[in-house]
């Protein structure tokens, strides 16, 4: 045990001795940090329609199936997707909106499901926190409507529902949203998020190119990714 305690001190001493100004603390580092160059593209330049179209194109390049609809149509579109999947047993996060749970299927809501119960399910339906059009990335922060990490991992089929207002064009715009503190009187349209303790960024279905650089879809994660993009009303 003491050897390990000594290692901590030894490593930190070595690291500090290696650098010219060992006396610097976090506040000094923060001043230095704020002077670092950030001249890359921090904001997108596309119109809303073009931004959404870019996301759709990128997702389709990954072989994800993408549908668009209005908020009012959403429950019917979800039901149609479930029917088209030919699957019957689905898991869902505990706080998934009730009208997304289309009737006629076996729904296992995650009030502490065990691994076997999730593994047996044929699909999963979740919300998301954000999407980045430029790279076709879906951001999941594992909130109550997005579910625990295991939920979007074991089932082979994932239906993810995104609101158009959640779509940003470039990655730095997502990180800007994360920096904002959420409004205390948070309305439906408040898009700010806290920096997540857990996050998964999904850019297309699980894939490998380890054998002769041939891209194979579906190694361990879900093999089928479906996205419904909900346009805001008005």
């Amino acid at each position: 045990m003491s050897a390990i305690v000594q290692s901590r001190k030894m490593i930190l001493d070595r690291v500090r001795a290696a650098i010219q100004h060992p006396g610097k603390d976090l506040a000094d580092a923060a001043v230095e940090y704020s002077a670092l160059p950030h001249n890359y593209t921090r904001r997108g330049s596309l119109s809303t329609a073009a931004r959404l179209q870019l996301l759709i194109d990128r997702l389709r390049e990954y072989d994800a199936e993408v549908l668009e609809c209005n908020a009012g149509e959403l429950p019917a579109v979800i039901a149609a997707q479930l029917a088209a999947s030919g699957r019957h047993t689905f898991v869902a996060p505990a706080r998934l909106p009730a009208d997304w749970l289309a009737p006629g299927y076996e729904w296992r809501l995650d009030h502490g499901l065990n691994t076997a119960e999730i593994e047996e399910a044929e699909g999963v339906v979740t919300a998301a926190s954000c999407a980045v059009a430029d790279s076709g990335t879906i951001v999941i922060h594992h909130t109550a409507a997005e579910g625990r990490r295991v939920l979007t991992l074991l089932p082979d089929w994932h239906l993810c529902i995104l609101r158009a207002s959640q779509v940003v064009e470039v990655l730095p715009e997502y990180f800007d949203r994360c920096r904002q503190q959420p409004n205390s009187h948070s309305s439906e349209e408040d898009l700010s998020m806290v920096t997540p303790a857990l996050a998964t960024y999904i850019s297309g279905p699980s894939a490998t190119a380890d054998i002769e650089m041939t891209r194979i879809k579906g190694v361990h994660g879900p093999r089928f990714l479906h996205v419904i993009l909900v346009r805001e009303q008005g």
Partner: protein
Amino acid sequence: MSRPAATHPVLDPTLAPPFPQAVLPVLRNPQLRKNVAHAIDVIQAKRASLVAEKTDWQELRSAASAIRTHALENLGTYLEQFETRCTAAGGTVHWAADAAQARQIILDLLRQEKASEVIKIKTMTSAEIQLNPFLEANGVHAFETDLAEIILQLGEGEPSHIVVPALHVNRSQVREIFARTMGLKDLSDDPKVLTNAARTYLRKKFLTIPTAISGANFLIAETGGVVVVESEGNGRMCLTLPQTMITLAGIEKVLPRFQDLEVMLQLLARSATGERMNPYTSIWTGVTPGDGPQKFHVVLLDNGRSSILARSKHRQTLKCIRCAACMNTCPVYRQTGGHAYGSVYPGPIGAILTPQLMQMHHAQSLPYASSLCGACYEVCPVKINIPEVLLELRAEVIDQERKQPGRALDPMYWGLRIANVLFSRAWIFHTAQWFGRIGLGLFTRKDGWIHSLPSVGGKWTQTRDLRGLPNQTFHSWWASRGPQSNGVELIGGTK
């Protein structure tokens, strides 16, 4: 079909033969060279097109370079901040001064969990400390879960690339390995079928083995978060299903802030695999009740890194984010593949990282495994000036050789001492030339070329022929033209 190279590659820098010797089995293995060249051509083409579409690529590189430099210059501060935040979130941070300590810490943690098996996400750092053989010797079997790592583990091969470790193995070789080790006689060599075989093989392990080991792509000081970037989902499986997670990370992996990922993630996927973004990025912070492992340990590894940090020109080596763009673009790596580097870190970054991690006691041939063409610097997403560090290290190797007592026995040493005298006076030089022409004449064949020379001269003719000396030197030709000649005629050309 042909098995992997008959001579088993040695990736321990303390035991590996020097690069020029280690490279010979590869150069004599056309299948291996074909596999490597094919894989590299595919990645290179994808990378080039995706980098070209990014109009702010150079600005991203500059930002990334500045962030990594800043993180290293404040490493002590950020490591402590990471430790505080990670601990507050329910994680436990361990510090390992060297490989032996890291192995022991991990083994002790596994013994606490009474683990006899452990699942692993691909981590080059664990290969650096040779963790798997150590665990095996102590009764813990480690199952690799990355497809390439499974191919290597089951085929008893060694990684030859840091992103696509089995790029030197082709589909029929994979088929042979899987058919033999998984008992699947009728397996085809379709990559899809092979991938499926791996999925089935691993599914049960993911669901039943309660302890996992990972590496880390980044540690976030600001939040105490850990980031793992992957494609297959085996990482997510290992990060989500087990009860205990042990992450091994080099101390240099720390980033100051969560937001720094907006730069790093854009650069990493494009540079590494030629994708706009890798399929899965996972971020977790300590322990989250009800979600994922409820025990989380981070082992921070020094193992020579702090000594690299101490030298200002060499420090940039630690900026590396392990994208492998340098090896994909390197004309030397393209011909040799990774095994010749005698380290888990091959290619240009390995040529500077390995000897430094060994504190220049081993791997001294690696700084010479380069043509200094600079392609690696050009593609590096964090702007590591690899040729600059290579030259620094070459100078250090020469300094070491100067101090060696046995150098008086080295013909090269005497050759250079003699050359020093020969070049000092014109008459000595001319006399030497005269003797040299006679001497080399003995080795010159009828075609005017020298194919083989003895002693140190063999270092040249080992890889290329040498043209025999002409009958007349320029000097004597010039003198024979007489005083009437002038430069204009010369430029006009002899008739």
